[in-house]
């Protein structure tokens, strides 16, 4: 099953399971979403539960706050993640805070879905990775599945979670990522990283579509060097599985962190800061980061140079393996 189909069918299951769930967003109804992630859901559940909204992100998120307070389970969609900026004051200033502001009365069981990441040559402001900006907002959980099965398990957990979740779907993975997906009620807990490739010499830590890039780079460099190279899929940036990070870095002594966003103040920096706090005495080499650059996400002809690819991750792996302890 493709990732988009895993998402669609999970949304379907959750809608069937929980009548208080409501989906809202631009073009998610009749059109089934610009990536068909909501295809057929309006026909099945009605236009009052799968709602085509006006073109206004702040009110999509802002009404979700009120819907939640009224006892609904809102699952809004932002068509492309940089358009979450139009709703930033509602996300960072409201969604993330209403529970505390009301001391628990108004929980915000909102899951804001949005695609992100490079690789499809869309116009600007479609493919940016802004995870680090979300991650700096206390009160949000941030979930980034890398496989079709995790898309199901993490999406179901996110929707059922009583806290607000930013659910990031990899744009180029919608159709490219395929895999078996457990039937029915498959739940993956939030905050548990997955060691998708075990290894002892160095670990690549990443999430979402970059997990596949990491796997390939790891295989390539492992074949070249004979090293065993682990890949850790964080799955969630918040809650961050610090224990899993610490365990594998302590074991390997070397790490590379891959992040599609720009370098400065990237989430990769957070991972590195955490590593050096937790694993300082087991580190044998500086932790490398492979990220985008401190430039806007490039236009189509140039984007391949920006998004971390197998070549760049492999080079970082070689450099990290070669570094003297």
């Amino acid at each position, binding site marked *: 099953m493709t990732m988009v189909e895993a998402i669609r069918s999970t949304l379907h299951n959750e809608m069937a399971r929980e009548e208080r769930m*409501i989906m809202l967003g631009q073009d998610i109804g009749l059109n089934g979403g610009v990536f068909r992630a909501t295809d057929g859901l309006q026909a099945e559940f009605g236009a*009052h539960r799968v709602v085509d*909204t*006006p073109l*206004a992100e*702040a*009110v999509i*998120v*802002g*009404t*979700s*706050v*009120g*819907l*939640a*307070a*009224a*006892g*609904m389970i*809102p699952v809004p969609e932002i068509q492309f993640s940089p358009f979450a900026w139009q709703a930033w*004051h*509602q996300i960072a*200033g*409201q969604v993330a805070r*209403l*529970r*505390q*502001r*009301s*001391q*628990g*009365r*108004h*929980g915000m069981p909102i899951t804001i879905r949005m695609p992100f990441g490079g690789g499809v040559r869309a116009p600007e402001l479609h493919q940016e990775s802004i995870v680090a900006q979300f991650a700096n907002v*206390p*009160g949000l*959980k941030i979930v980034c599945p890398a496989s079709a099965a995790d898309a199901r398990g993490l999406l179901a957990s996110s929707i059922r*979670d*009583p*806290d607000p979740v930013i659910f990031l779907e990899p744009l180029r993975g919608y159709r490219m990522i395929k895999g078996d997906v457990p039937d029915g009620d498959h739940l993956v807990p*939030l*905050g548990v990283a997955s060691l998708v490739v075990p290894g002892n010499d160095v670990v690549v830590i990443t999430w979402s579509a970059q997990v596949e890039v990491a796997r390939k780079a790891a295989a390539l460099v492992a074949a070249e060097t004979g090293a065993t190279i682990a890949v850790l899929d964080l799955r969630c940036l*918040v*809650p*961050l599985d*610090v*224990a899993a990070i610490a365990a594998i870095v302590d074991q390997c002594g070397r790490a590379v962190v891959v992040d599609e966003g720009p370098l400065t103040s990237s989430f990769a920096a957070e991972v590195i800061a955490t590593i050096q706090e937790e694993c300082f005495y087991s580190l044998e080499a500086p932790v490398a980061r492979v990220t985008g650059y401190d430039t806007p996400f490039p236009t189509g002809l140039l984007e391949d140079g920006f998004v971390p690819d197998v070549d760049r991750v492999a080079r970082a792996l070689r450099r990290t393996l070669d570094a003297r302890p």
Partner: protein
Amino acid sequence: MTVVESSAVDLSSWPPERLRQMLFDMVQARRNSERFFALQRQGRAGTSAPITGQEATVVGAAHALDPTTDWIVPQYREQVALARFGEEVLATHCLYNRGHPAGSAYPEHVRVFPAQISLAAQIPQALGLAWGMQLRKEQGVAAVFFGDGSSSEGDFYEAGNFAGVLKAPLIMVLVNNQWAISTPTSKQTAAATFADKAKAFGIPGIRVDGNDVIAVHDVVAEARTRALAGNGPTLIEAFTFRMGYHTTADDPSRYVPEDQAREWAERDPIPRFTARLTNAALWSEADSTEALRRADETFDRLFAAAEANSPMPDAFFNHVFANPPQRLLDQRHAFNEGREQ
């Protein structure tokens, strides 16, 4: 746009106790503001935003609502005037004033939403509440308060526009007190009236004398009837005046023209409604004295309770999440350890 004033309305159809209660609530509201202000000057209370001059708008609207079914979604100035929704509103607001984390934590049965500081952000939220009630087939409305200043924010327009599409049971009370801190409405918009903005949403827009508690009550009641009948939202511009400070941190003498202040002092809603009820033999000077006494008694009791309520130093870790991540639990632990050192 319809403009509504009530001078012609016959009060005899009103239950006298309701009229007296409205005046009492207005007197109490002002008194609360004065008390917060004085305590702030003494260093005992935090910043506050007085309701002085705008009591008729808030009290009139609140009395048109049913506290058991309807929601009030305030900005930050109305809380002192919401006695209609229970004494708990003021009790909680005393905590708010002190910077207590529970300062917007109204008890479950009090249908008042937390105070909003991010101006106009409450309007989409109120729409969501109204829409949610509609979806859940609950008979109720959401009434959202916001200022002339807030009406310049995109959130107001996005919400008004979507409300029109949804025909949600929403009442938008735009409190035009003619100032947003130091900014006069002439710099806020060139629209003929704020009520005119309803045209952009395809919904009714009504301008009402916001210093006339009966008029405000009636337009809100009418909007409520319309909303409950499934006929959608209403934008109500309550035209009033902020008679004092924006907040305790402000100095309006820098910018409010003296003439304007004088003119509006004469339109003060409290003497106005007092005179009306006195003429109708429903109020006496003794009532005014008694109203102040009761207001003070209530305020003293609630503020004292708030002063006695000290949060634990680590209380800001509460309620961030229902299921807090381990990392946050660790931070709380470290915080508490540090404090113990």
